[in-house]
């Protein structure tokens, strides 16, 4: 496109980095928070502040709970009705049961998959779900929002834009832009080894920002690349459903062969049958794992063809001690005998399972999970400094020309950096401030998040008028103070509304809640320091020129 390779890559890096960078900020920030999604859930749902529990008894607890899920969620029904050629019947048949837990889960998520007849998709299901306390099986209220796993986590891979799943595609494009930004960044960064440790905060803003951008980008380069790539690979079925769309006969031939081989039927028999003791099956599974020197708990329980004579029960281990996801043991539902055990995966599937497990990090290794959390913040810093560099480099030229480009980029940058954090802390504050028994509490909380974010956009837009005169927008400082205040307020409200103040949680060693409180205080502290530093810089600001010692091209 340009005269040289490097120029073309510089254009690619700048413009795709800028436009998709706003999406990437969301993906990496909420991705980082998702490392602690279960812990944030505990903070947000005080009635779940108990110790992590293993998978409870199926026969005594889960069976009746599954039976109590009689229909899919309303959103699921609505989405399914867009995929069918004839109107949905009033009652759908339940055909799948699933329950999933990890070493960090005090409560258990359970779902029932209902058959969707006349669907354009093969083997289509609509899902209904509940959350239970595994100790006694009582169902948790439906409109309580698990802020970590049900709000922040899906935000990072779908932006909560569910219309035709377009959110997944936007994040995917952003992930690909990230990979391209890494490749192009390396090509552009001529002194990548010499400047590996270079950070000069004392220099002009443009230079020190670029230093920080390069530093955070390069030192964590394998992390940025692997997490963006593995995120894409996890959803490969959504992005490239080549086999399903183009080669359905081949897929079906393989499924038939696999069903013969494993004894797991593709279709329900149509004849009724009752399940044997699933608890006995779980015991067999645990014994088998222990006999191989890998004792463990049940992580995922799956019943297929519910109510049929050929129902099957699949049990997967909670793989706390390795990165890759686990293999399953499959039982005949009516008799409890083992039908098939997944063999150790082939070399390529192992790589796939490793990349998936690495990205989802459900394993039990707190050091590594914390390191991944820090990695996410290095990525966020890289992206944020990219925005700041873009604005700083152009604001004088734009101010002189009366052009509003850097003003708008600055406004969007504030919104997706500080604004996003403000909205996150605001929803935590509202989580504590709203009445406990408020109806549709989950909708209230979600709305408060979006409203807060919208307000930060408005505030940022208003304040970014200063950029038109090549001055720093006050929004940065003001939103930093908002972060500091709301972080502290969230901790106070937690103490006041639940009594689980830091004194109590630290002495009891209840780390999920203590950890979130401490993180909130750390955010508040860092934001306050940043606000003060920025204020000092603003009052001492001299008109900075846009030049650097070594000219970097756009």
């Amino acid at each position: 496109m340009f005269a040289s390779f490097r120029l073309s890559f510089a254009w690619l890096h700048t413009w795709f980095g800028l436009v998709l960078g706003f999406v990437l900020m969301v993906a990496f920030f909420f991705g980082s928070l998702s490392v602690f999604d279960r812990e944030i859930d505990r903070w947000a749902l005080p009635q779940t502040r108990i110790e992590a529990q293993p998978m409870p008894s199926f026969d005594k607890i889960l069976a009746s709970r599954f039976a109590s899920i009689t229909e899919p969620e309303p959103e699921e029904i609505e989405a399914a009705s867009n995929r069918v050629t004839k109107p949905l019947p009033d009652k759908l048949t339940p055909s799948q049961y699933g329950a999933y837990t990890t070493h960090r889960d005090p409560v258990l998520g359970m779902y029932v998959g209902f058959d969707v007849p006349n669907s354009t998709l093969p083997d289509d299901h609509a899902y209904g779900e509940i959350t239970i306390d595994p100790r006694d099986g009582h169902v948790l209220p439906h409109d309580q929002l698990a802020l970590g796993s049900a709000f922040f986590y899906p935000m990072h891979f779908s932006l909560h834009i569910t219309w035709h799943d377009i959110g997944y595609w936007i994040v995917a494009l952003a992930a690909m832009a990230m990979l391209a930004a890494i490749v192009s960044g390396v090509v552009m960064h001529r002194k990548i080894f010499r400047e590996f440790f270079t950070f000069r905060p004392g220099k002009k803003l443009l230079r020190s920002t670029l230093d920080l951008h390069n530093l955070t980008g390069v030192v964590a380069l394998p992390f940025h690349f692997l997490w963006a790539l593995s995120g894409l690979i996890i959803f490969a079925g959504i992005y490239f459903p080549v086999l399903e769309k183009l080669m359905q006969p081949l897929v079906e031939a393989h499924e038939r062969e696999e069903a013969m081989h494993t004894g797991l039927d593709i279709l329900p028999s149509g004849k009724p049958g009752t399940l044997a003791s699933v608890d006995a099956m779980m015991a067999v599974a645990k014994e088998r794992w222990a006999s191989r020197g890998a004792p463990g708990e049940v992580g995922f329980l799956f019943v297929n063809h519910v109510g049929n004579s050929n129902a099957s029960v699949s049990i997967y281990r909670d793989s706390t001690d390795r990165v890759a996801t686990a293999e399953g043991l499959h039982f005949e539902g009516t008799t409890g005998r083992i039908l098939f055990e997944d063999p150790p995966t082939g070399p390529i599937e192992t790589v796939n399972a490793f990349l998936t497990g690495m990205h989802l990090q459900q394993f039990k290794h707190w050091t590594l999970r914390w390191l991944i959390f820090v990695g996410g913040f290095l990525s966020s810093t890289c992206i944020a400094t990219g925005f700041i560099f873009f604005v700083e480099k152009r604001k004088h030229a734009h101010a002189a020309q009366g052009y509003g480009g850097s003003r708008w980029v600055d406004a969007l940058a504030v919104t997706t950096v500080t604004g996003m954090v403000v909205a996150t802390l605001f929803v935590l504050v509202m989580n504590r401030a709203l009445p406990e028994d408020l109806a549709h509490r989950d909708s209230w909380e979600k709305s408060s998040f979006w409203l807060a974010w919208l307000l930060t956009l408005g505030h940022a837009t208003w304040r970014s008028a200063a950029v038109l005169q090549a001055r720093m927008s006050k929004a940065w400082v003001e939103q930093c103070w908002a972060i500091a205040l709301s972080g502290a307020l969230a901790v106070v409200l937690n103490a006041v509304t639940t009594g689980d103040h830091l004194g109590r949680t630290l002495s009891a060693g209840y780390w999920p809640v203590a950890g979130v409180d401490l993180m909130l205080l750390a955010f508040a502290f860092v934001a306050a320091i940043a606000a003060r530093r920025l204020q000092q810089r603003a009052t001492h600001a001299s008109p900075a020129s846009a030049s650097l010692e070594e000219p970097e091209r756009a």
Partner: protein
Amino acid sequence: MATVSYSSWHVFSRVCGSILGSYAFTWGFIAIGVSSLIGAGLEFHEASSLVSMLGFLVFLWAFCWAFVAASIARVWAVLAGGGAVMTLAGWWVSRALA
């Protein structure tokens, strides 16, 4: 900023070419890749996983190449054209296998 000036249309075309063209090319790569590997005897899931994972790297290559290629015509010919050819070939091979 660059000394070369380029029209908005050119930029739009490159961007579309890189995103859509790369998607088509990757789709084709996966189609011919999976069917060929299964035909060669590789296990179904192994073949499917390998080609999907490589697919994203192919996409990345195509995406970047679209911006350094000499002309937009070449971008569309290679990526969209190549993608279509590979998709057709892959589909044809899969039919022969099933």
